[in-house]
């Protein structure tokens, strides 16, 4: 529909997601805050010829009101002073695309006193250098908030700095290994050529010395992580990949050094190649994982750091951490609650989506409990603190997540298990070779033969077997909307036996939709038209779904003028024909209007309407099941994976949906800790559990499970704690993901076979003391080509 495309970018607007702005009475519709903001800036700077002079209208309560949540006193703790200039790092939430980054950079750059601004596309972190005399940190934050994004202060703590240093060190190790291996390749080529056509001994010696020179840093600097890992593995008395790598590298290097003095062939290129290729593999694997920032940190930042405490008849801003039980706070509309508490006075609607995933705002009246981090939507309330910030619901969930993450044993990798068998075997064969040649006392040097066995048994293709398969599989599945966070996740996904789903937003759409329109008289359109007139200016999800439906049918909608919102009840609009009331059953009953049908048995949300004292009828909204949910559950069964549903909703609601979808096990009324506990128990039974969820209440279970899966559109914390992310909200892609993972595991198994196959063929040569460098090179090249070629087959899944 042409009238439902974004005024700025011309893309279609998803129903009920429109952001509406009014200019000279003309209604302009945008698909996101970014487009609206770009429009505002372009027109504000007088650059847009299409855009005429306009006035801004506040766009409802989107996000939190950040302007007065952070003050300079608090933010100055995050500012670094450098040569008289301030430097501030902050995290920007709400960035979706490249133009969002562009917008923030350009806009902040235009502020007076800002000399440098850079926003990282991958991590959404901004770094700004400014003149403290001309602009304050809170002004900068206010500017970001004005664009519709949410800035959060971000401190470089020790852990994060160490992590960043680690990444850079790995990159430098790899770069160094690459540079030196390239040099080495030249000398090795000369030596190989010399092997076939003859070379004078002086040149040969020279090449060997240079080869030794460049290989030494590769082994001991670039290869340090493997050597360290091998040492740890020896201490733990469990053989792993690192030990196998270290064994191969050190034996090749040692034998070559020995040959350098004693005469004979050198294998420096083997040692350097093993290190370089395996480092490359680790970089591949790390790049997928690195995108994840610290999820727990973000979770805790959900609650504002500043609260407004009432003292006498005044309020003062205090740090959230200093609040005590019994303190009384004032929470204004648009603010997030700093701590858990009970409402003392006032009634409002609270958006708990960030915490529970529940899409509809929940009405809360005096005496009811509210949760830290949730958003107060409609009215100011006085809240009595029931738990200090460190004990709030969100903080408790964060602790659960942290515990689960620290406790969870890493998925034991296939390659490690292979190494555990292979290392003792190789050492045994090498030892046997040594003993045999001493025993027979032939012409062959026993030590050299034993070392040759070690060299040939540690294939460098081993380092490529897992990473190349993971790289190709993650690349191919990313195109289908499945993001695997690393190779162990792929392995874990392939072995799943049980899938547990959250209900709201996972099996259901998480967005209300109109199920039925029931006018008491007249047509559906008439009723919808009247209701849409009253609800036109509202940001309530139910209102937006009604307005979207009215627009779809080509009906006119209201603009919110003259309407009065009663939190938790409904809206009123005075018309010539009488007072138009739209809202809950209770709201109409309070106004003395009767005639409503009795409650229906279905779990639907009802919206009733009345004009004057005449009852008009009702509109029923529901959170619909995802259309593919039933199919997906059936496919899971066919893959041999059991299904379960874990939800915080009532047991009856859970049972009904479970029966509809054919889910094996259904559990309702679960808290976040209960869900995690259930997952833990299932894992103790030996099940390999997949948890699919989207809210904060799923976060502990997501990180507890073997594989946690979040869908796009879920809360940030769910995305951060999950191992597997679906970028399209489609459960069928999850089924595809599992199939891809299983296929990948097969390929990894084949790769491991090929990695060893050729080298094992060359093993008798080594044991008999006949190994020439050309044999080692041939075995290595053949296995590497097989492994890479085999992995590439994953591309055309």
């Amino acid at each position, binding site marked *: 529909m042409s009238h439902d495309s974004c005024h700025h970018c011309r893309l279609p607007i998803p129903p009920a997601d429109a952001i509406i702005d009014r200019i000279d009475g003309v209604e302009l519709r945008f698909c996101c805050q970014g487009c609206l903001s770009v429009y*505002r*800036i372009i027109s*504000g*700077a*007088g650059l847009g010829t299409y855009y005429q002079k306009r006035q*801004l209208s*506040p766009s409802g309560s989107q996000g939190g009101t950040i302007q007065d949540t952070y003050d300079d006193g608090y933010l100055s703790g995050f500012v670094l002073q450098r040569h008289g200039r301030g430097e501030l790092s902050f995290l920007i939430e709400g960035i979706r695309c*490249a133009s969002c*980054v*562009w917008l923030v*950079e*350009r*806009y*902040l*750059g*235009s*502020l*007076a006193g800002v000399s440098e*601004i850079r926003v*990282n*596309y*991958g*991590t959404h972190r901004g770094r700004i250098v400014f003149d403290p005399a001309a602009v304050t940190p809170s002004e900068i934050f206010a*500017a970001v908030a*004005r664009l519709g994004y949410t800035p959060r202060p971000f401190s470089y703590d020790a852990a994060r700095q160490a992590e*960043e240093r680690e990444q*850079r060190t790995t*990159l*430098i190790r790899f*770069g*160094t290994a690459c*540079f030196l291996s*390239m*040099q080495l390749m*030249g*000398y090795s080529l000369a030596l190989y050529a010399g092997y076939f056509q003859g070379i004078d001994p*002086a*040149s040969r010696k*020279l090449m060997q010395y*240079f080869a030794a020179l460049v290989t030494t840093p590769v082994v001991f600097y670039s290869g340090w992580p493997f050597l360290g890992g091998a040492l740890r593995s020896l201490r733990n008395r469990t053989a792993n990949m690192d030990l196998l790598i270290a064994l191969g590298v050190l034996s090749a290097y040692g034998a070559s050094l020995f040959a350098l003095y004693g005469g004979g062939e050198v294998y420096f290129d083997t040692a350097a190649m093993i290190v370089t290729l395996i480092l490359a593999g680790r970089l591949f694997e790390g790049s997928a994982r690195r995108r994840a920032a610290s999820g727990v940190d973000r979770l805790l930042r959900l609650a504002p750091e500043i609260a407004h405490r009432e003292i006498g008849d005044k309020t003062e801003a205090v740090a959230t951490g200093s609040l005590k039980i019994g303190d009384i706070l004032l929470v204004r509309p648009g603010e997030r609650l700093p701590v858990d508490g009970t409402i003392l006075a006032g009634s409002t609607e609270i958006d708990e989506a960030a915490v529970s995933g529940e899409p509809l705002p929940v009405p809360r009246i005096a005496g009811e409990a509210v949760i830290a981090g949730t958003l107060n939507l409609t009215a100011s309330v006085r809240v009595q603190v029931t738990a200090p910030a460190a004990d709030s619901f969100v903080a408790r969930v964060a602790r659960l997540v942290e515990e689960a993450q620290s406790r969870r044993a890493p998925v034991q990798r296939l390659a490690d298990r292979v190494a555990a068998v292979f290392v003792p075997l190789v050492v045994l064969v090498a030892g046997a070779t040594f003993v045999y040649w001493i025993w027979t006392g032939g012409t062959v040097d026993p030590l050299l033969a034993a070392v040759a066995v070690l060299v040939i048994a540690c294939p460098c293709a081993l380092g490529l077997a897992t990473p190349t398969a993971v790289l190709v599989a993650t690349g191919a599945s990313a195109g289908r909307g499945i993001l695997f966070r690393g190779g162990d996740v792929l392995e874990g996904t392939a072995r799943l036996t049980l899938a547990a789903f959250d209900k709201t937003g996972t099996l259901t759409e998480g967005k209300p939709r109109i199920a039925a329109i029931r006018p008491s008289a007249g047509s559906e359109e008439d009723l919808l038209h009247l209701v849409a007139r009253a609800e036109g200016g509202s940001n309530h999800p139910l209102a937006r779904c009604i307005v979207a439906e009215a627009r779809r049918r080509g009906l006119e909608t209201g603009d919110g003028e003259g309407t009065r919102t009663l939190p938790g009840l409904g809206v009123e609009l005075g018309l010539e024909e009488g007072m138009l009331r739209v809202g809950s059953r209770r709201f109409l009953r309070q106004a003395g209007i009767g005639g409503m049908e009795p409650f229906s048995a279905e779990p639907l949300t009802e919206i009733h309407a009345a004009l004057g004292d005449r009852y008009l009828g009702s509109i029923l909204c529901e959170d619909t099941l995802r259309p593919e949910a039933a199919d997906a559950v059936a496919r899971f069964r066919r893959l041999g994976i059991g299904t379960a549903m874990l939800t915080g909703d009532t047991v009856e609601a859970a049972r009904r949906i479970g029966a509809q979808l054919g889910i094996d096990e259904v559990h309702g009324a679960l808290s976040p800790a209960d869900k995690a506990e259930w997952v833990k128990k299932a894992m103790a039974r030996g099940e390999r559990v997949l948890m699919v969820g989207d809210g904060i209440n799923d976060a502990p279970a997501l990180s507890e499970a073997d594989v946690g899966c979040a869908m796009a559109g879920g809360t940030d914390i769910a995305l951060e704690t999950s191992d597997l992310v679906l970028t399209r909200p489609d459960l069928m892609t999850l089924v595809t993901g599992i199939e891809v993972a299983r296929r990948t595991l097969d390929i990894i198994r084949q790769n491991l076979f090929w990695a060893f196959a050729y080298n094992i063929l060359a093993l008798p040569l080594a044991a008999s003391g006949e190994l020439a460098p050309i044999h080692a090179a041939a075995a290595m090249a053949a296995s590497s080509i097989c492994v890479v070629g085999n992995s590439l087959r994953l591309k055309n899944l």
Partner: protein
Amino acid sequence: MLSSTLILIILSLFLGTGVWLIFIWAVKKGEFDDIEGAKYRMLEDDPPPTRQGDDIDKQSRLP
């Protein structure tokens, strides 16, 4: 023959070391921290962000 080879090898080592030092400098400076951004930034042909007069100031004072 041998000495000319030696000179060439040492020359190539020096050349490579130069490139290696530039690489390390780039990593330390954080050039590889944001590998996503480059492909978008190269398409921006606007002037670098500076103050652009009154209109933007007016914007930033709006509520």
